[in-house]
């Protein structure tokens, strides 16, 4: 980074800001996006590749990510798999809701302080509710 010589003013660091909903949602948008990209798409590729590989490779995927029929290390990875899958579902809904919020902000609307804080909080309420509904549908289906 090229900088003019001498001391230049710096904006306050993350820890100095007072936390607010818009700030939290902005940070969550990046974290969930990167999580979905790195963890979600990797798991998605394993899943698609496992189906293409045939019944045995698909069973390997299921055993390591969810079922853990042999115990041992699989018990840990299957527990991790469940946490990651629920986490990815929440990350998707959060990223989707804050992404839709970005569409609204893109057209120049929703910047009033109260409106902005309200819609920021609503994205979080939505993501938690949608994750609960989705997993209830999967597990009770």
């Amino acid at each position, binding site marked *: *980074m*090229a900088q*003019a010589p001498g001391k230049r003013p710096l904006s306050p660091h993350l820890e100095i800001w007072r936390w607010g909903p818009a700030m939290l949602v902005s940070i969550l948008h*990046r974290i969930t*996006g*990167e999580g*979905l*990209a*790195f963890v979600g*798409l*990797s798991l*998605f*590729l394993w899943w*698609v*590749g496992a*189906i*293409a*590989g*045939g*019944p045995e490779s*698909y*069973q390997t995927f*299921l055993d390591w990510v969810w079922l853990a029929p042999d115990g041992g290390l699989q018990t840990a990875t299957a527990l991790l798999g469940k946490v990651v899958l629920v986490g990815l*579902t929440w990350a*998707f809904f959060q990223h*989707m809701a804050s*992404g*839709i919020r970005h*569409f609204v902000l*893109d057209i120049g609307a929703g910047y009033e302080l109260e409106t902005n804080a309200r819609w920021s909080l609503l994205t979080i309420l939505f993501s938690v509710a949608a994750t609960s509904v*989705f997993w209830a*549908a*999967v597990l009770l*289906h």
Partner: protein
Amino acid sequence: MGNGTSIGRVRGLGSSHHGTGHFLSSRLTAVGNLVLIPFLMISLALMPSHDYATVHAWAAKPLPATALILILINTFYHARLGIQVMLEDYVHENGGKIAAWLFVNFVPFAGAAFGIVSVVRIALGGA
């Protein structure tokens, strides 16, 4: 980057004039994801079971296979754009920039190619 005159210090550090295209592609693929990912999630939630036969039969049908391939194009490109923005924000050393540039231009496309080959194999028989 020069270090002599004022203009020499800033030359080459301005806009690359690719920002608008990047921004619009990010929004366009976001709209695509808004259709594709709920389709995948609802399909998975409504499946009577998640054993091999059920999942394979579903993925082999034309509509789901098309959706999966579109996810491998659209969602992977969306992720690639987002990762690029994140790396641009956090990676400032020249060596790291080259590594980041190689990463975002190879890995997402390699992953998507692997996924598309897999879906084609599922849909057109094989395993």
